[in-house]
């Protein structure tokens, strides 16, 4: 069918668009020269340099840790929030939603500096300076709105009656939530989780202003070296991350296909 081919081509074009620069930087991670302006030969030296650099490896750990932690925590708080906000009356809902938009609208510098001031003002009370924990709090703060924005559409799509039917049939509200609501809004929750993770893994400005004590992330590391020229070991790092994620995806995909075919067989 023509439709099928058109769909395929369109999708391929989009993926070409998305991955063209990725392919470029993978290729240049093997470039002898430090510059992306010219190709001067194949080498693995940037990978070697990468593994010798403790600072970048530590930054990588921090980046991943904060991304996973803040994404998960933001998803939990955000999903609950979305469910609650969905039930609110008009005016309260409007106020809460508009406040929720603030971290999305505000330029990073404003969010970053205002959070930095908040942490500095509360330092005498909490005894905590800028560091890993404050960076984590900041990340959760800008992630939650995106989770809420991802889950809300699914809640609107939801049929109230199924939830009420479950309650009528004797389910406790919590059980009904778990078994009826959550599965239906699951795509929204996963979307929120992914978007939160994505935002967190590559944040510079807010992270820069809310961290300290030697805690850095990849974004800070890269931007700080921009003045001197981005070292290709970052390309090497990006390549490794990319390949790892792809490999994980393929494995997960294969497993899912195996599960699906098993289900198909048992149904027969």
């Amino acid at each position, binding site marked *: 069918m023509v439709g099928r081919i058109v769909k395929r081509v369109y999708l391929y074009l989009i993926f070409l668009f*998305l991955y063209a620069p990725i392919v470029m930087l993978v290729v240049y991670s093997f470039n002898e020269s430090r510059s992306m302006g010219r190709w001067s030969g194949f080498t693995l030296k940037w990978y070697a340099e990468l593994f010798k650099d403790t600072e970048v490896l530590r930054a990588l750990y921090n980046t991943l840790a904060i991304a996973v932690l803040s994404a998960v925590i933001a998803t939990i708080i955000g999903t609950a929030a979305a469910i609650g906000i969905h039930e609110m009356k008009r005016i309260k809902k409007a106020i809460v939603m508009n406040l929720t938009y603030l971290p999305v*609208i505000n330029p990073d510098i404003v969010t970053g500096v*205002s959070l930095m001031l908040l942490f500095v003002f509360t330092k005498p009370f909490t005894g905590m300076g800028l560091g890993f924990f404050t960076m984590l709090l900041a990340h959760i703060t800008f992630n939650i709105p995106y989770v809420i924005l991802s889950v809300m559409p699914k809640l609107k799509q939801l049929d109230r009656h199924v939830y009420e039917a479950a309650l009528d049939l004797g389910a406790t509200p919590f059980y009904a939530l778990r078994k009826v609501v959550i599965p239906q809004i699951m795509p929204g929750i996963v979307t929120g989780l992914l978007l939160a993770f994505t935002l967190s893994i590559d944040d510079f400005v807010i992270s820069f202003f809310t961290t300290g004590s030697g805690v850095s992330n990849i974004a800070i590391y890269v931007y700080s070296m921009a003045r001197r020229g981005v070292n290709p070991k970052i390309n090497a790092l990006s390549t490794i991350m990319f390949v790892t994620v792809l490999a994980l995806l393929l494995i997960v995909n294969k497993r899912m296909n195996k599960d699906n075919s098993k289900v198909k067989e048992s149904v027969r």
Partner: protein
Amino acid sequence: MRRTWYAYPYLVWMAIFIVVPLFLLLFYTFTATTEEGIRFTLQHIKRIWEPIYLIVLLRSILLALICTVVCLLIGYPVALILASKEYSQNKVLALLFVIPMWINFLVRTYAWMSLLGKNGLIDMVMDFLHLPPVQLLYTDHAVVLGMVYNFLPFMVLPIYSVLTKMDKSIIEAAEDLGADYITVLKRIIIPLSLPGVISGITMVFMPAVTTFIISRLLGGGQYILIGNLIEQQFIVVGDWNFGSAISFVLTVIILISMGIMRKYDREYEGGAIW
């Protein structure tokens, strides 16, 4: 069974991490510190109404609008395809959309500069096809391309999440009643997916207004955007009052326009969106 209390943990969080910084912002916006002390003033807000700053503001909003529209036009079909019969089994495909965004932004953008620049890959391909070279880097087109590149997943994913698990029976009923694909699309799919579209628009338009690095790197830095201006005030000039004031005015403008947009859609959909 009001489930509003589910939101309480978030409300506490919001009070600490969003409202308090907001008050800080309001403080800087509406006060000026002189020898006599701190006093209330509107001088910072008044400064924004100078034509030079208004031009910057309008340009940024226009650019964000273009980016959002392009993202919507490109992204909606993608979401449709991903949710359609052939691909809906493949849950992994949607993930492939976000993964490029996990690579550092500066590195990705440098790669684009390498692709688009003179003697870059695209130039070489044009050369190979015996076509005249096109100056792509340092143009407005490059800026839109760069912005769409960075924001597309934020448009596609929410729409996709709404399109999957859409009630197929309604579509089937429409088809039974004789509707062709275009009608089904116009009358059923698009209206039902509107919540997702609104979320997508929100997640793209709002941050796009204050984005400026892409314009600097890919567009030649030819004009200054509101994001630059605000950052300059905080970082270079040290005028936090003016920086906060610009941010405040920008926020108010965007919130009001989003509010108006939603009022129109409420008529369309007939359900509470706000």
